[in-house]
């Protein structure tokens, strides 16, 4: 598969009154046609900032790309002008944001908000755009679309709004759909519907999806590959199987371990203590070391490089170094890993 998007050594910083906040610190990843990449991490880990850097939607003038390249179809889009980006956004790369309650313009009819991209990027006439809008609304599962296009967002429920936001993002058959925590603000039942919708649409349109979330449970359902971010860096990246059955980074263990399972009442959750570091002055060595119960002496001195685990699987932890003591994931995490493996057998039925 060809690489649709390639991010190389990307660093993003924000200038604030207290100094430079290094939100993203040199990350590399790529995205292939039609695949779903999940970026997982706590709030403040830089996952949203990464996608905003890709679409150049960083809040200006504070936020800026410090170093790195973002190659979209082999062209570096960090060098694009505003005009070029406007042509790209919504057409080739579109975004679904977290909160459907606030991401629609309250004083513009929903139909018009969807049609806007169609008219701009696909040069449709108003009538054509209207027909396409109705089609899109039906596609995302909004009934009575013909009536709905003339309504305002406040006349939609939360789930409906997120469907409308998805419709906006899908309007021009984007090659990449960035979903920035699209289900976080929704009820659990609605979450499942939206996820299902996105999967369906991906099958139909063959778009690649970058799915941002802090919820590994959601990832298990949708992602082909997973990147785990911590303190502005990718600490582990691999296929969903790599991450769920064979996690290597203690932070990933922590994320897996802190997921409640149905039988979790018997055991203690493996919680990650503390909170993420202050990105104003990132700590020396491994940023995760202060919260890592398996931290090595070297973690406080040197930053771990990316160690290759397999063809698809990389992790940045000194534990993978040949000199490191052999440490297995905590028992509760191991049990979860097994749980995922058994769940996987019944995955299709569960949908």
């Amino acid at each position, binding site marked *: 598969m060809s690489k649709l998007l390639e991010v190389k050594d990307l660093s993003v910083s924000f200038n604030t009154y207290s100094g430079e906040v290094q939100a993203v610190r040199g990350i590399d990843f790529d995205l292939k046609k039609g695949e779903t990449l999940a970026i997982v991490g706590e709030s403040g880990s830089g996952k949203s900032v990464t996608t905003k850097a890709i679409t150049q939607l960083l809040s200006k003038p504070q936020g800026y790309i410090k170093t790195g390249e973002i190659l979209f179809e082999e062209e570096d889009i960090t060098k694009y002008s505003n005009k070029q980006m406007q042509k790209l956004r919504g057409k080739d790369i579109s975004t679904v944001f977290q909160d459907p309650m606030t991401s629609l313009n309250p004083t513009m009819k929903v139909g018009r908000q969807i049609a806007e991209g169609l008219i701009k990027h696909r040069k449709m006439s108003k009538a054509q755009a209207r027909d396409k809008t109705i089609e899109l609304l039906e596609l995302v599962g909004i009934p009575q679309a013909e009536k709905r296009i003339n309504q305002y967002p406040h006349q939609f429920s939360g789930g409906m709004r997120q469907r409308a936001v998805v419709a906006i993002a899908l309007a021009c058959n984007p090659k990449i759909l960035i979903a920035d925590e699209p289900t976080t603000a929704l009820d659990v039942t609605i979450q499942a519907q939206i996820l299902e919708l996105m999967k369906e649409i991906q099958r139909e349109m063959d778009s690649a999806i970058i799915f941002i979330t802090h919820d590994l449970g959601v990832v298990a359902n949708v992602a082909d590959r997973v990147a785990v971010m911590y303190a502005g860096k990718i600490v582990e990246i691999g296929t969903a199987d790599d991450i769920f059955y064979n996690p290597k980074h203690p932070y990933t263990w922590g994320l897996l371990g802190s997921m409640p399972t149905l039988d979790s009442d018997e055991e203690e959750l493996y919680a990650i203590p503390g909170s993420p570091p*202050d990105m*104003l002055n990132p700590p020396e060595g491994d940023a995760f070391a202060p919260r890592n119960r398996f931290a090595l002496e070297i973690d406080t001195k040197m930053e771990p490089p990316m160690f290759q685990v397999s063809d698809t699987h990389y992790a940045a932890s000194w534990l993978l170094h040949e000199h490191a003591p052999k440490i297995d994931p905590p028992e509760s995490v191991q049990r979860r890993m097994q749980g995922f493996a058994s769940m996987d057998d019944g995955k299709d039925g569960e949908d």
Partner: protein
Amino acid sequence: MATNQQKHEPPKELFVPHERKEDTSEKITKPSRSFFQDARRTFFKNKSAVLSIILMIIIIILSIIGPYFNDYKMDGQDLSRAKMPPKVPVIENLPFFGMDGTLTSEFKGDDVEEATQNAVMRYDNNEEFIDIKVLSEGDGSADSAEVSATYNIYEAKEMQDEYFWLGTDQLGRDQWTRIWLGARVSLIIAFVAAAIDLLIGVAYGGISGYYGGRIDDILQRILEILIGIPNLVVIFLLMIILQPGITSIVLALTITGWTGMARIVRGEVLKQKNEEYVLAARTLGQSNGKIIRKHLMPNIAGIIIINTMFTIPNAIFFEAFLSFIGLGIVPPEASLGALVDAGFKVFRLYPYMVFYPAVLISVIMIAFNLIGDGLRDAFDPKMHK
């Protein structure tokens, strides 16, 4: 996927479990500050607000002690020294400030002679004390010639030794004295009106919002009726039937003025009392009084202070406005509005009479608005850095 190939191998002896001396994972890197400390910090970082505070302190001090800097009285009338322009020791030698005790103006005429005549006529026919400078010779057509005439009144009236820092008015009263007394009156009106609005508004709005239910219903109906009556009309009527003076103006301003504060406080109390933290306090069995004092008040204090800071310039404006249209303070009493009004009547000949009170009232208004803006930012958590 490119792995960062390590150039030099890390030393082997470091691959041992890290001994944690203290739990650093929960270390808080920023000093903790209370909301009000944050607010104060933000406020004092705001240069224009701090400058305005300093300016207001100076103005308030001057309005208290300024009138006693010289021996002239507020109503010390003396027609022989009427309409004397400003003259200040030392500064009188610096022509740029225009405080040298002379009046200067341009006069027009068909030719230089006529223009000069016009000037002399305007300036008490005291030809020997008038310096004429020809600005334009003219060609004989109407008003084509122009001269600039400078009239040295202090010499003409043989009062070289007198100094009226800001000049005198039509009745020979010292403007410096009157301006600071006027500022005093304007500020008293503003502060008292703001204080009364604050008291009534907070009490009314607080009770209405906190107790809710039937009390709130009744109080709100009353408030709605009061708000429906235009306050301008109420103020006019009261000012017409009451004797002009500080008390009447304060009464007129406050009789409907507190409704705004009451509405804001009620809205805020309603919002805050349904917050979880108040519920928590209630669950823990705290008394109403304690909840109001310890929980509600600190949280609505910001909005009350901000609103009060905007009531003050509003009251100053209204006092000036009423005095200006003849409904407020009337001479011989002085207020900034009354002084501007008096000065306006002669401002083409004696611009200094309106200039200084107008500048002072503008400075006061700007300063209070900037302080208000500064406070609004200071109490906005989004602005805390």
